[in-house]
């Protein structure tokens, strides 16, 4: 599997606008009515979906760089909502805090106009299961 996006992410219209070698994949998502929560604001769940996808994209690109292709299973995510998501394009970028053999810890931020003013951030843990191992288990 390449560093492509999931069917869910593609259905919402997320796109990779920049792929860094250090896992600094940048995601963008235009605003649309299907992303709205209360009128005039992003839905919290849609923001969480963007954050989570950016985390996965950052991890996947680093794993591809290392020649690894494990199944990724979410363990948990904690999202902080910092300000209202206005109806405009939003961006998100994940940063790998720790990458081990079985577990990865990531931090992700989402913003709109200014990367220094995030609208939401998340911490997530992801379990990595190699295909051979998953067949045995």
């Amino acid at each position, binding site marked *: 599997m390449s560093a492509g996006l999931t*069917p869910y992410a593609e259905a919402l219209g997320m796109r990779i606008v920049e792929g860094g070698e250090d896992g600094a994949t940048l995601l963008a998502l235009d605003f649309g009515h299907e992303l709205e929560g209360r009128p005039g604001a992003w839905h919290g769940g849609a923001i969480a979906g963007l954050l989570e996808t950016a985390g996965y994209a950052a991890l996947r690109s680093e794993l591809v760089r290392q020649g690894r292709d494990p199944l990724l299973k979410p363990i948990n995510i904690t999202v902080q909502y910092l300000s209202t998501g206005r109806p405009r394009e939003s961006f998100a970028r994940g940063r790998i805090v720790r990458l081990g053999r079985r577990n990865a810890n990531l931090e992700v931020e989402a913003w709109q106009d200014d990367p220094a003013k995030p609208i939401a951030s998340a911490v997530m843990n992801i379990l990595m299961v190699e295909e051979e191992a998953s067949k045995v288990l």
Partner: protein
Amino acid sequence: MFQGTFDADVLSRWVLKRAHPGWLGLRYRDHGSDWVELELPWRADLIGDERRPVLASGPIISLMDMAAGMSIWVANGIFRPVATLDLRVDYIRPARERASVAGRATCYRRTRSAAFVRGEAHDGDPKDPVATVSGVFMTLDPARMR
């Protein structure tokens, strides 16, 4: 539009039709005095990994966020906008293949400006959840909203 008595049966039909919950196809299932249960129907374009036909975790967060917000409306007895401050989701196990996921959220504590919520997502058996969530919401003042 923002204020008035909250009738979960009636208003959920409207609030789940539009915008992000409408796009996901969320359905109202049931509610009590401080909880709401919604359903996220199975859909192939909401898959999280092409190798397994299982709903992605993103839509499950949206399901739980929506059920949580609605649980605050029923607990308050009025329909007033809320904003999520903090939401934590623990994924206990993957959902079954091609399974719909139900989410029940309970608003267990309210203060004047905050509401505390916890909930579970399951794919058939509420005693065997796929995810648990806890979150804090802030109630918004409609007079100060544009």
